């Protein structure tokens, strides 16, 4: 179980304010358990991806939704292809 504090501790360059923005914009998903936010491993990897997009590839915050939306469509398509057996499992 990954909490907000654990997630922030995983990435030294991650600020809580960044995460709040990304969560409220839907870039990173979370479950709500009482007053706590709970994350899955895929969410932590998503945060890593966004940090790499921002810090290494210099994708700025405005361009982020475009990039993520295209990526989400790409992966949705690949999951669909895999379901159809067109991609190696």
């Amino acid at each position: 179980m990954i909490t907000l504090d654990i997630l922030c501790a995983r990435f030294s360059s991650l600020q809580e304010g960044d995460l709040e923005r990304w969560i409220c914009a839907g870039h990173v998903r979370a479950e709500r358990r009482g007053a706590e936010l709970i994350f899955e491993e895929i969410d932590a990897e998503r945060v890593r991806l966004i940090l790499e997009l921002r810090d290494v590839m210099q994708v700025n915050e405005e361009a982020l939704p475009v990039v993520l939306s295209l990526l989400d469509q790409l992966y949705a398509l690949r999951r669909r292809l895999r379901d159809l057996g067109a991609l190696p499992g």
Partner: protein
Amino acid sequence: MAEDPYKVLGVARDATPEAIKSAYRKLARKHHPDLNPGKPEAEEKFKAASAAHDLLSDPERRARYDRGEIDAEGQEKAPPGYGGPGGFNPGGYRRQAEEPFGARYGQAPEGMFEDLFADIFEARRRAETGPRRGTDESYRLNVAFLDAVRGATRQLTLPDGKALSVKIPPGVVSGQVLRLRGQGGPGGNGGPAGDALIELDVAAHEFLRRDGNDLRMDLPVTLKETVLGGPVVVPTPHGSLRVNLPAGSDSGRTIRLRGKGVAGHGQRAAGDLFLTLRVAVGTPDAALEEFVRGWEPEHPEDPRAGLEFGE
């Protein structure tokens, strides 16, 4: 053997740090594995570029590499900022996103997340900026026996050098904890300070024993004092007292001095001091021996009468 990092990034050996960073960014954009899910070779290229950048962006290690002290594989470290469990993990998102669970990041209606989670962050901010009470700090204080009997004020030196004046009320016992309000850790954002919790350790005494709020002490008396009675001077925690011994006081007899035990405190009355007489015959005395030898008791008694265990 890894490739020459300058070759991997496509820069000259005297490239500036800016040129190295720029070259790395170009390669990262092109080969990032999460952006190239169908191309396993992209992951290898991205890894190589990251490793090369990692080495060349550290002036010290770049110099060591240039001097030939370390090879291109002289590191297997995560790029700064992406450490933590798992460390450097290229393609980590891709592996998750291609599983059925990856549908977590399908298309979602706009604006729905803000309403769902904004209050949690708001509450965290409030918790951080609102008044916070300081922590309670625990200390131990050794208390002299008589300080616990009479009460006292003692200085406790804290680890930070600050001295704390501790008022010890009469009647405290070992293990008791005194709470000094507001003497603990400082509060945050205008919150109150925590408390100092002081656990007391009361030392034993050479002659005196505690029995609740009463005190007990053996009082040595001479043969003459025990036979004839009369005034003797007794040292007590509250100063020396003249005590009148009744004539013929046997060894073991108890004398009670009211209010001379543990001092009273608040509603609680002072305890008593119980003296138990102990006859001290002292060094051998020829005259005493002579007298006792010729002495016949007026009413002979067996002091051991009744000292039977039965069958």
